[in-house]
């Protein structure tokens, strides 16, 4: 076990953990934003992520085949992200309108069942589109590494870590500084009082779904670039892990979801040093069980806790 003390190994695992953690964090934000405002777990969030990943895949494939990507690789990637985020946003908005809004005042189990139904439906739609075959992301970012003191970090990783942090800072500023962001917080705290301020509560809820979904779409492209292979089932495990991250950070708590994502990513990266890689998923679900038993409000605690 002496290699565990090797600083290069440690730094490497930190980088790996931050990469995957950033992706979890982006997805966890979607769960937490929706929960914060509706007290509902959007179990179709993994499929929103999956559709975004395929949207980015379609855009990148098109750019590579048309030769556009050779001339403008950076631009192609940005467009692919935008396409993914738009597709995921539209899907999130549709889900809210069709699957959740009609059940807004129904017992809490109803929207949950609706979400699971939507999730299965969306998986099957994508399965039909891709004929159940694994798709391979075109490699557009060159698989290069930078060496820093014996540690090699891939361009992908730097890109994902910086990209996820960039989006999270953007989200944070949006929620804290803009009028719509403040209205989101007001609606999360008290829907009726918010409506008495002239806030269109339905519009804010829709906006919340759109934003959370866009972040999931971006995460979908990151996963595609990082792991290269995608399929219609790809949303399931990351979905549950991101949910775990959201619970870890205290569901409903935006900063908590970010922290929870990175924490889970790091826990997995270091966990595989101690156990066979096949058991990696056990770490996330073990943590979920432990947190739910011992600290159900998460590390930072639920911010919106007045109403149940």
């Amino acid at each position, binding site marked *: 076990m002496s290699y565990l003390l090797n600083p290069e190994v440690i730094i490497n695992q930190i980088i790996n953990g931050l990469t995957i953690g950033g992706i979890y964090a982006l997805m966890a934000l979607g769960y937490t934003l929706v929960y914060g405002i509706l007290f509902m777990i959007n179990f179709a969030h993994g499929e929103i992520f999956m559709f975004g990943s395929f949207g980015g895949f379609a855009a990148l494939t098109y750019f590579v085949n048309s030769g556009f990507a050779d001339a403008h690789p950076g631009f192609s990637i940005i467009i692919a992200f935008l396409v993914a985020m738009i597709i995921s946003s539209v899907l999130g908005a549709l889900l809210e309108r069709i699957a959740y809004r009609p059940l807004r005042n129904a017992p809490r189990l109803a929207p949950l069942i609706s979400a699971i139904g939507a999730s299965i439906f969306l998986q099957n739609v994508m399965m039909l589109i891709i004929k159940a075959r694994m798709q391979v992301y075109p490699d557009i970012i060159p698989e290069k590494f930078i060496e820093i003191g014996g540690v090699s970090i891939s361009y992908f990783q730097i890109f994902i870590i910086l990209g996820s942090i960039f989006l999270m800072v953007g989200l944070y500023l949006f929620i804290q500084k803009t009028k719509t962001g*403040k209205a989101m917080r007001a609606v999360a705290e008290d829907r009726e009082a918010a409506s*008495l*301020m002239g806030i269109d509560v339905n519009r804010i809820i829709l906006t919340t779904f759109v934003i959370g979904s866009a972040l999931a779409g971006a995460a979908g492209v990151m996963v595609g670039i990082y792991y290269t292979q995608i399929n219609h089932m790809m949303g399931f495990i990351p979905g549950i892990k991101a949910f775990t991250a959201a619970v870890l950070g205290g569901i409903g708590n935006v900063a908590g979801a970010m922290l929870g994502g990175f924490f889970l990513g790091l826990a997995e990266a270091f966990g595989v040093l101690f156990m066979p890689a096949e058991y990696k998923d056990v770490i996330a679900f073990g943590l979920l069980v432990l947190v739910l038993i011992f600290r159900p409000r998460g590390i930072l605690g639920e911010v919106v806790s007045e109403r149940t």
Partner: protein
Amino acid sequence: MSQGQPLLDIQDIHTYYGNIHALKGLSLVVNEGEIVTLIGSNGAGKSTMLKTVSGVLKSREGRISFAGTRIDNLAPHKIVRIGISQVPEGRKIFSHLTITENLEMGAFVRNDTSRIRTDNEGVFDLFPRLKDRQQQIAGTLSGGEQQMLAIARALMARPRLLLLDEPSMGLAPLLVEAIFDTIIRINREGTTTLLVEQNALMAFQIATRGYVIQTGRIVLEDRTENLSENEMVQNLYLGVDME
């Protein structure tokens, strides 16, 4: 205060909670420029009436008009847009937001940035205690300060009609007096006011006309000086206060 045109005209509304018939044909008029008070004991239907006016609850029958147009089918946020703001029962301030952010939410329907800033100064004039605490999280304010914030927040929408649901509740007498003085000041500056109260003694001092509600119906309506003389009102709503 001279009486103008009817600004709020409530005719025969019936509001239900499931099967519970909470408002049973209630009618009430507030004229432009007035302070009107609605008094009644616990559970009489006062808050239900204000919620129905604000569109949070829908009446099954009857009609509500504001400045001549029907509003009983509008969503709550649209009712704020046309000029009705409510200070709800129990304040309902956004406790995780700062004072400044609460006031910004009050002005949510407006886009006239420079006049919003002037009005912000205006409400700080009314409630200097809020000015010193602008960046404080609203949940940490005292009960009285929270009531001030709730009123200030509603004023930020520049309403033509202000609905107040028991603003004196839970406040020390001195503070109640200060709040009521402010209501008079707001009214003099042109805001028509409908004041819901259990504290009839105070309410009658500032309102020109009053209504008495019992189990979802208006049972009395008169100028407040006449209501103060009314035996039933004295027994039911003033007796406790004068003990």
